[in-house]
């Protein structure tokens, strides 16, 4: 169960930091604010999960876990590690990821682990908005100019195979399913695929076929892309100066 919470927290922390790179340079001011507040939400989700790990499952201090671990100890997936790229890629990743987040937390409403079920209840509205934001832009840009449509399709072709890294299984999955903590990654994947495919087709875009997701697996076991290390270095820069500082 610890594995589930840690990977969810790591995903949220890393995507939160990654998407915050748009703060100040977003396409327009209002969208800049929107993307930044959703990043803050993600950091909030990470913090809540690290806190549950700390208070209920004997994990370390949330700040230490977030800012004082080596890259190999992170269990985030490859999707969240990739650079922000152009706004098309960031938007498509946001769409693919938040659809998964939305369904994951929705399933966790039924979790036998009460603190997790309570958190799922708390973040429901936030994730609904994250999905609404992603869908609105996907629809807008897929039906905008020829250029915007082409860019969305290209970004989708790149991001879609990587998105399968979200659903990489961990060792203790069978036990977790038996304990009714979570229904498992396969169940989540099939719900996500159906929803995402319907959405993509409704925008007039094509669901990528003939791709290989295998190269993007390993994140859950600590094998990461070359992009994680520099991100962690930047993210922990201030913390590392004085890890014991009082804020």
């Amino acid at each position, binding site marked *: 169960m610890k594995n589930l919470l840690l990977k969810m927290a790591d995903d949220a922390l890393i995507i939160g930091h990654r998407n915050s790179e748009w703060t100040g340079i977003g396409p327009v001011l*209002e969208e800049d*604010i929107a993307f930044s507040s959703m990043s803050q939400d993600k950091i909030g989700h990470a913090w809540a999960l690290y806190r549950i790990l700390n208070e209920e499952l004997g994990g370390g201090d949330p700040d230490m876990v977030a800012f004082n671990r080596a890259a190999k100890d992170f269990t985030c997936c490859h999707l969240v590690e990739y650079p922000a790229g152009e706004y098309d890629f960031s938007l498509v990743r946001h769409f693919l990821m938040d659809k998964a987040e939305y369904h994951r937390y929705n399933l966790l409403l039924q979790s036998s682990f009460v603190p997790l079920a309570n958190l799922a209840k708390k973040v429901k509205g936030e994730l609904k*908005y994250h999905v609404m934001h992603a869908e*609105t832009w996907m629809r807008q840009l897929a039906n905008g100019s020829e250029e915007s449509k082409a860019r969305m399709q290209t970004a989708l072709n790149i991001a879609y195979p990587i998105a399968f890294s979200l659903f990489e299984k961990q060792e203790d999955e069978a036990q977790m399913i038996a304990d009714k903590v979570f229904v498992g990654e396969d169940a989540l994947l099939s719900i996500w695929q159906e929803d995402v495919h319907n959405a993509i087709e409704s925008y007039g875009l094509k669901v990528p076929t003939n791709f290989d997701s295998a190269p993007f697996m390993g994140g859950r076991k600590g094998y990461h892309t070359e992009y994680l290390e520099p991100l962690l270095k930047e993210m922990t820069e201030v913390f590392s100066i004085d890890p014991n500082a009082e804020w």
Partner: protein
Amino acid sequence: MTNSSLDPRIRRIDLEHVKNGVAPTNSHWITFEVFHQDKRGKQPIHVGIVHAPSPEIALMFAKEQYARRKETSNLWVVKSSEVYTFAPEDDDIFETTPEKTFRDPGFYKVRDRIEAYKNKTS
């Protein structure tokens, strides 16, 4: 000359293509009026505007600009061009309204209380 700003809200008027004094339209994002409702059942109050390419995006931008911190039950966005108003030069219609204090119900309430007080003391 076309001055296409990097900001999609501001694509300046294409002066080269002005025909009969009319510049090409649809080169700007749409302006929406935003109304904020803090509790269900209460009146939505006008809080400002947003620029957006569609009502859906206007609603999202309105959430970010006007509902980030305060208590919110709902938001309305309405295209500014859909708001029908008096012409600015017709404001003389309202010129004498402030004089018509007899239309203010508060006026009577206070009068009644003053009269009641007077009757009591006399």
